Each structure stands twice: as C-alpha cells, then as structure tokens.
C-alpha cells in the first residue's frame, strides 16, 4: 500500500510547449532532487554520431548564457549541492540534489544547462581528450569489454549493439555543428521531462518552471526509428581471453518483455526469485554450493528488445555444471515453486522499493525513468499493484518460454 500512498502526492502538468512536469511533495525530507530527462540516448544516433549523446552531455557542463564555463559547478557546490548527469542508450538526464532552501537556484542551473548552453568550438576540443580518457578508463577494466561483447553478440541490427561512449574515431570527429544539430533535435520541450521531489510547494515550483523551461518554444521532435532486432533463431556463444583475468566471467541472456508491458512485472518477480539477495534461488543453490564466486540476474529495462541475463564469476571448468544447474533450477521452478514462496518474493520486491525511496534522488529517478523511457507515469504509480497482480501461472509460462528460446552467451577466461 505504501508505494500507492506515496504516489498520491504526485502533481503532473503538461506545459503549453509540450514539456512534462511532475512534482512530488514530500514532508519527510530536507533534501530536494530536481531531474531533467530527455528521451534520447546513444540508440538515437546514426552511424557517424556514435558517442554524440554522451559527448553532448559533457558539453552542456561547459558554459551557458548565464553561467559561463566553470560557474555552474561553482554555484551548485557552493550551495552544498550535488550535480551530475547520465547518458544511457534510451535516455539522458541531468540532476541536482540540494538542501530545500536552494531548489530555485538549482532549477535555474538545470534550465540554463539544458536549454541555454553555449556549445563553443574551443570547448568541443577541450572535451575530446577527457571523453577519450573516459573511454580508455572503461576499456582498462575487463568487465567493460565483457558487457560490450555481450550486447554485440545479442544485437545484430539494433543500435543497442554499440557502446554508449562511442569510438575514439567518432569522438575525434565531432564538431560544433554536429552537436548543435543533435542538440536542437532532441533537447527541447516536447522531449523533456522535469521532475522535482522533496519538501516543496508544488505551486511555487510550477511557477518557477513556467518562468524558465516554460518559456522555451515547443517544436516537433524528429521521429527516430530505432531498428528492431530480428528474432534470434540460434544459440550464440563467444569466448574471449584476457591476460589480466584471474577467474572467468560468464553472461547468458534471452530476449525478454519490454519495460512497461504486463509481462515485464512477471519478469521482475522471476528476477527476484532467481537472483535478488541471499534468499534467492541461485545464491542458495549455486553460490552457496561453491560452484561460482558470484551469481546475479537482471534485465536492461529497455522499452523494446529487452534482455534478461544471468551473470556469474567462476572457474572455467565448472561452467558446464553451472549452466546445467541454471537450466535445471529453472525447470524445477515450474513444478515445485510453492505459492507461499512466490508471494513472499513479491512482497520482498515491494518492500525493497520503500527503502530505495528514502533518497529523493532515487525517487526522482524512478519517476523520470517512467516518463522518459517507459512513456507512462503509470509504471511508477501502479508499480506495487502490478507486482501484486502477477500470478504463479504467469511465471511458470514465462520460464517455459525462456527455456524454449535461443540464448546468447559470452565467456571471458584468463589467458595463460
């Protein structure tokens, strides 16, 4: 019930220019989180632009009309706030968490940052080595290579097959004009979701938003057809070797229901049962039996062509045993899962969201994700009800479906 009660305090507005504003007034905190989300990420890029969504995110911190380069971080940090941003394949968001007296300043900073950036040519050149260092820092970690290979193996057509950060060649080729084009297309009101969570007066926030974001002109957003991934017809397996490794890493994944669909809630319950926490089946039956060093499950939370995966670290000679055990446990679950265990798993999932909402930034993140990625605030609002509605039969059917489908595997082993 708690999640539902929380959602009662939501105020949703559609501004005249097409922007969406959601305000959640919470009395239980002194902090305020302000998020600005855009429905654009690396999956919206064309071939020559790989990495531009992420590069643009960096560039927005390099000066705006009101806050020249360096001023913006100064304003936020001098108010004791945190500012950051993130680029994904489906979304990009900018956010500040700050003590409640300073929400107005924070809102103004995010307005300037996202709507009034300068995107100067010399800053583009300044930023390139930094982003290339970020890319190399990622590649310095073997698990980054593992996850990149995993998506390359699963996706043969979808833009999800490219890394968010792009490639050194594309990053070096970015110009101010390319950034401006991408910026104008996607960073505008009709593609924008503003979320404010904290101890705030909704009418005041709405007024301040209308004075800033509300003044921007709403133009049509270009429709980007993300190429759909064709059905996978065969099992795929890739093996990588890496001299730096001491143990092996294994990932196996299946195509799975998209976030926001009815089946997605079943997937979340399955994930809870299999891989969430120390009460989970795989932890008890695989990790605690000494077959792996670690094992977990998850999904990419994508609005299409989503993937459910099992991830383990282990010794290579145990892989066949572990893989057989994963399939065997899934099969057994279809016949032996008791109603009580099933209901308990749902309750664990629902209760754990209560703890994650203690932080205003997590609360805003969930709301932003619902709006910008799922496309419906209902995902956030009715999450608890939707989890409660999952039936054991749905789960059994989903496992049956999973077991009958082709999968993709990537194994990364130590090179000796």
């Amino acid at each position: 019930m708690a999640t539902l009660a929380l959602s009662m305090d939501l105020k949703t507005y559609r501004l005249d220019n097409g922007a969406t504003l959601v305000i959640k007034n919470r009395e239980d905190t002194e902090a305020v989180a302000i998020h600005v989300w855009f429905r654009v990420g690396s999956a919206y890029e064309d071939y020559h632009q790989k990495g531009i969504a992420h590069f643009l995110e960096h560039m927005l911190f390099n000066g705006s009309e009101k806050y020249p380069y360096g001023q913006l971080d100064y304003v936020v940090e001098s108010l004791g706030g945190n500012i950051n941003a993130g680029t994904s394949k489906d979304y990009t968001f900018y956010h500040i968490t700050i003590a409640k007296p300073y929400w107005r300043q924070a809102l103004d900073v995010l307005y300037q940052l996202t709507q009034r950036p300068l995107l100067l040519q010399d800053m583009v050149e300044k930023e390139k080595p930094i982003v290339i260092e970020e890319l190399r820092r990622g590649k310095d970690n073997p698990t980054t290579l593992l996850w990149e290979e995993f998506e390359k193996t699963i996706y043969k057509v979808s833009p999800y097959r490219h890394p968010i950060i792009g490639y050194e060649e594309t990053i070096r080729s970015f110009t101010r004009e390319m950034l401006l084009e991408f910026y104008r297309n996607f960073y505008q009101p009709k593609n924008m979701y503003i979320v404010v969570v904290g101890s705030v007066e909704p009418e005041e926030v709405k007024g301040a938003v209308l004075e800033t974001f509300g003044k921007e002109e709403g133009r049509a957003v270009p429709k980007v057809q993300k190429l759909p991934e064709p059905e996978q017809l065969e099992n795929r397996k890739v093996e990588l070797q890496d001299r730096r490794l001491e143990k092996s890493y294994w990932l196996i994944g299946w195509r799975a229901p998209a976030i926001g669909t009815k089946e997605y809630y079943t997937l979340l319950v399955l994930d809870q049962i299999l891989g969430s926490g120390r009460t989970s089946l795989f932890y008890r039956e695989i990790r605690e039996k000494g077959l792996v060093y670690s094992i977990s499950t998850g999904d990419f939370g994508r609005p299409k062509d989503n993937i459910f995966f099992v991830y383990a670290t282990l010794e290579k000679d145990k892989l066949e045993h572990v893989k057989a055990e994963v399939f065997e446990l899934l099969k057994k679950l279809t016949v032996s899962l008791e109603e009580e265990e099933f209901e308990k798993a749902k309750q664990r999932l629902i209760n754990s969201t209560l703890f994650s909402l203690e932080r205003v930034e997590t609360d805003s993140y969930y709301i932003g994700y619902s709006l910008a990625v799922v496309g419906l605030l209902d995902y956030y609002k009715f999450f608890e009800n939707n989890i409660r509605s999952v039936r054991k039969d749905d789960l059994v059917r989903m496992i049956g479906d999973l077991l009958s489908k082709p999968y993709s595997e990537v194994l990364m082993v130590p090179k000796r």
Partner: protein
Amino acid sequence: MRFIIVLLFLLSLSFGGARLREYTLENGVKIILKETHGKGLISGSIFIRSGTHGEKKRGVTNLMAILFTKGTKKHDAYKIASMFEDYGGFVSASASDDYVEISFSTKIEGLREALDVIRSMLSEPLFEDGDLRREKQNTLKALRSRKERGHELAMDRLRQITYRGTSYEYAPLGKEEDLESITREDVVERWKEVLKAKNTVVSLVGDFKVEEVLPLLKDALSELPKGEYAYQVKEADISLSLLERVKREGSQATILCAFDAPAFRGEDYFAFKVLDAVLGDGMTSKLFKELREKKGYAYAVYSTYPTRLGSPRLIAYIGTSPEKKEQAIKDLIEVVKRHEINPEDVELAKNKIIGDFLLAHQTRARQAWYLGFFEVMGFGWRMDLEYTQRIKEVDYQKVRDVRERFLKFHHCVVVEP
C-alpha cells in the same frame, strides 16, 4: 569576485527528526538510538572496534565477519537472510581496517525477529567447516582478482609501501599465504578475542519509540562477554618520497599517491578535511580543474583523506593514457603540494563538505552508520551533530597552516602497461 553564500541555513537542517538517546548496558555495550518518522523503516549498524589490528593470520577477521551470516545455533543462512529480506531490507557483515561492521535494515514489524538473529549471530555463530572452506576459496579468489583492475592493484601495492609494518599493510581481505592456513580454531579464537562488550557500539535509527526498542536491544546484546579487546595501533612514518612502478596490460596508467597527513584526533583534522576537499573533491577542486579541465589528462581525478586510527594519509588518484603519465604524476604532486589556494576556495570547500554530509544523511542506514562510526572511532557519536559546525569553524589560515606542516612527502604507485 564571486560571492560565497554562507550556509547558515544548512547548519540547522537535520534529517528524519530528532530524538537521540544513548545507553550503556551493564556489560559495556554502547547503544545509540535515533527516532525518525516515516513508514516503519529501521536501519542499524553494529561496530566492533578491532578491524585487522592484532590479527595473527591476515584475513581472519574478515572471514569471521562473513561467517556470522552463514549460520548460527538457532538459524541457518537462509533464515538469517530472510528475516531481513522478507521486509525489503538486508543484513551484511564485513571487516574494515579499524572495525568489524554488521549493518541491516528491516521494517518495524520485523525488528524483534531481526534482533534475535543478530543476538544469535554474535553470540552463537557456528563457523562451520564447509562454509569456512568455501568462503576461504572465495576470498582467495577475490584477493587474486584484485589484479584484474588497475585501481585495486595500485591500492594494494600502495598499502604495502606506505603502511609497511602496520596492520594496514594488507587489505582486510588478508594475505594469500595466511588465508590458506586459516582453520576453524583460528576463527573461533579471533571471535573470542574481539567480540567484547566494550568494543561494541550499536546504532539504530528508525520509525520507533526508544522505550519500545530498548528492551529488545538489551535482550540481544546483554549476552556479549564483558571486557575489552585492547590493541596497539602501529604507526608508519612517511619521511621519504618514493615512486614504484608496476606492470599490467591495459589502456590506461593508474596513479595513486599517498601524502603525509595529520592524525584524526585534534584540531588539524577538520582543517585538513577542508584542504582535501579544496584539492580533490568535486568539479570545483584543484585537481579536477587543473588536471582534467586544463590539461585533459583524465576523466577521473580526485583525492581522499580516509579517517583511520593510525598512519594518516591523503591519497590522490588519476587514471590517464600511458603517453601522458609522466607529466601527470609530476603535475598531480605539484597541485597537491603547491598549487595556490585562496580564501574563496576554502569557503567553497567547506560548503561542499557540509552539503555532502547532510545529503548523505537521507537514509536511515547512513544515519546509523555515521552515529556508530563516530563513536567507534573515538570521536563520540555527538560528532554527528557537531561535524558541520567544526567544518564551518575552519578558516583560511588554518588550512594554510596544515598544508605547510603536512604534504611534505609522497609515496606513489604507477600501474602501467
């Protein structure tokens, strides 16, 4: 000239309300309780002052902590986990350099059961051979796997140089040759040694009434044996600068440097915290501005000043491409030791620390952690209330002064392809 807002308002903020109480049980266990208002959530931290100090076999304390959650006379591993996870919470146990920590979250309706599990974990753990064997293997692998990441490899090497001869020389995971020889008897011996009432601090923050939970805590903790585990904290000096290179394949060089810093007791601590924030915390910090923004050496660069009982250090990090590394090392040391700092930088850093500290208190789990941490480290839990004021009192002159007296020597490790 930019204007710095003095965060007077921030200083008066607090998260989750108010009523704070302290109790000392007859056996010496210290309990700190904080009432909050909300939807029935509770988080707690149990600190046992010990860490790796005085370990005969390196890694035994961490194994002991892990095994707390694997089974007791009354509850098996599944039961232990489910008592917390059923309510959406968790329980975990681990060892750090200066303490063992058990942290947990649950809902009010699960508290009675949760505390009974905690009682059983501390007072009657099984330390079963099978579990010990498996966790030893896992820990050995985790230790060896630290070479997989440049940062972890560099940190381990840096520990061996800058903390030589102290308990911090090895990470709490331990040392390979010691881990292999650890037996059940070793674990039991360590448990009997460190799990003393006077070493134990319990902090609980949640939507409860103190009067309701105090009896439950008394039941759970009164069994702990009286007495204290006393140990000596060994100190390592840093009186000679040196740089060590370690080879590892990769696309970046990882550079970590430790500098001499003041001990955490005393006035210098807060001034040095501010200095650390000026140098390496956030986007306005000197390291970020100079090495990332001006020189383009790195995506990530920062410094930290970890609070440890002995051998205090400021540690600075940068990850950069191999062709930039020599210049990056030089510039990193230069910025830390000599880059100009003005009064405005100091005011900004203070606001940053105060803001971060308050925002970190959003969850009950972090509130409990801070209360327990300050108590177990010897500041006293009230430091949680005074911290922002102590930071505010630091002035420019104090920061200059600590900078002049410290940061004279460095120990650097470069992990490079």
